[in-house]
């Protein structure tokens, strides 16, 4: 065997090793979470509030809290994000303004989540006097989700075939009618996929809600938007760092629940994206209208796609 062949083998082996290590780390990670968590998940665990100083009972209030926080923030961010995407896609004038909007969105997407938390605390909690409340937390999370939703929506709209738009205009529809009746309905499945990704991200955030919404313990469920809430990610953090002995038992199932949750989202995302990728919202019924060059495939713009990963 020559030196070159040896080098070839060694190089490829090294690459395989890297993939192997990555896969092994992932497996250890998932395995240890599920091993510790699955056994403890029970009906009681997901339907009961914590008892005996967090050593027994369940995580029901945290589930409810995270549900409301996520729902509210998406309800705030989704309309705003879609409208902003409509501007970027269909109007985009004047050009300097569009540039500024794009720079702003890219910058927003890159800001660390703890800074969102500080912003929420300074503006919503202190300056606007909302105190630590579900409202302040949802608004903070909405700001965080906004760039993701804008980018996903804009990309979805860009996937709408030009023919559709031209046909609509040629039939005498105004620009508003074209947007509302042609572009948005066609792009809707992809927009919703983007929203789901944002939901996954928003629901898992801890740093932005630490000072704006989350509380370590509350027996009752939140009754209004001005209440503090328990939230799953903060619950995990708090239990781990408060360091009482009994608490050791609770976070792992919470964590396992989280992973199930994430898996569901991920699964759903893949399913819906592949469905859209292959058939499109109309399942190819009007495929004679669609040019080959513009398949309706789910794709986020490059950089932002990676930014929307994790954290």
């Amino acid at each position, binding site marked *: 065997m020559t030196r*070159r062949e040896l080098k*070839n083998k060694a190089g*490829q082996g090294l*690459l395989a090793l*890297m*993939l192997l290590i*990555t896969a092994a*780390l*992932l497996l250890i*990670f998932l395995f*240890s979470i599920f091993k*510790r968590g699955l056994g403890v998940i029970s009906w009681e665990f997901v339907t009961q509030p914590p008892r005996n100083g967090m050593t027994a009972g369940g995580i029901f209030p945290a589930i409810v809290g995270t549900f409301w926080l996520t729902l509210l923030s998406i309800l705030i961010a989704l309309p*705003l994000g879609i*409208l*902003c995407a409509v*501007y970027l896609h269909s*109007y985009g004038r004047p050009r300097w303004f*569009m540039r500024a*909007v794009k720079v*702003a969105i*890219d910058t*927003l997407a*890159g800001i*660390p*989540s*703890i*800074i969102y938390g*500080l*912003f929420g*605390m*300074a*503006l919503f909690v202190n*300056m606007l006097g909302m105190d630590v409340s579900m409202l302040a937390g949802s608004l903070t999370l909405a*700001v965080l989700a*906004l*760039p993701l939703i804008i980018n996903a929506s804009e990309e979805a709209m860009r996937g709408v075939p030009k023919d559709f738009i031209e046909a609509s205009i040629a039939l005498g529809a*105004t*620009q*508003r009618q074209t947007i509302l009746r042609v572009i948005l309905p066609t792009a809707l499945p992809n927009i919703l996929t983007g929203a789901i990704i944002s939901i996954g991200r928003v*629901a*898992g*955030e*801890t740093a932005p809600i*630490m000072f704006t919404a989350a509380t370590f313990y509350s027996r009752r469920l939140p009754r209004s938007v001005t209440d503090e809430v328990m939230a799953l990610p903060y619950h*995990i*953090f708090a239990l*781990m760092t408060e360091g009482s002995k009994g608490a*050791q038992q609770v*976070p792992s199932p919470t964590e396992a629940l*989280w992973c199930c949750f*994430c*898996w569901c989202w*991920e699964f759903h995302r*893949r399913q819906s994206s592949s469905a859209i990728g292959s058939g499109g919202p109309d399942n190819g019924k009007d495929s004679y209208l669609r040019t080959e060059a513009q398949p309706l495939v789910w794709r986020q713009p*490059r*950089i932002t796609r*990676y930014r929307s*990963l*994790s*954290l």
Partner: protein
Amino acid sequence: MNDFKEKSFKLITYIAALASIMLLLGIIFSVFAEGIPLFKTIKIAEFLFGRDWYPTHGEAPQFGIWNLLIGSLLATFGALVIAVPLGLGSAIFISEIAGSRLREIAKPVIELLAAIPSVVYGLFGMAVLAPFVRTLFNVSTGLNLLSTSIILGLMVVPIIASMSEDALSTVPKQLREASLALGATPWETISKVVVPAARSGIVGSVLLGFGRAIGETMVVLMVAGGSAQIPRSIFDSLRPLTSTIAAEMGETVVGDLHYRSLFAIAILLFIITFVTNMFTEIVILKRGKA
């Protein structure tokens, strides 16, 4: 009437677009407005290069963030040391060597790592990795630079892997075929043709990973240990910028020096991530032009 509807709808979208700019300015303004007043009392140089962080000391509180800044950089550097070989190696293997069957499994699985909330990574670090590191190396605490780097690295791997893989897959097939036809081995083709051709995308992915790691809060808050010193070895605990903010904000009084100093840290963090993003943007743009 129709014209009115038309105009008002257009106006609404403009307002929504304006809102995104206002939100960014709002974030910048609120963080700067709360942080800048610190520098009336503390000199900037003293803040940046001061070695002592004793914000709650009764008579003479000290606000030097040098140790915290170094902590952040070390943790990020450590994460990249782990994530770049793993992420890049996996990406190259998946895109250049693996068959399509493995590719179809491996890529989603690696991206799955990214769908898990950071606090879960932190939990894994605290509950599994830290005790393991402590007993394996027989050191006093498992919450140290090594554990932090491993966990942060694990979080950055999917970013580097998926972005590099995309960059590699945009390299034209002809380049590979030409190289192989000239008698180069697959390894030579990878290391001398494909990777250099995808260079800017790979550099971009590393920069993005850097920005991700330095801004990450929950993991370092839970795993780094939290002592405000410059670690002397990888088994010392450390305290990065982000975890300082998260850990201490709850103890402050709105408007006092401690509160302002934490916002000043946030300003620094914002500038670091902003500059990194600009760099990434420039690197990617260059690729688009070339």
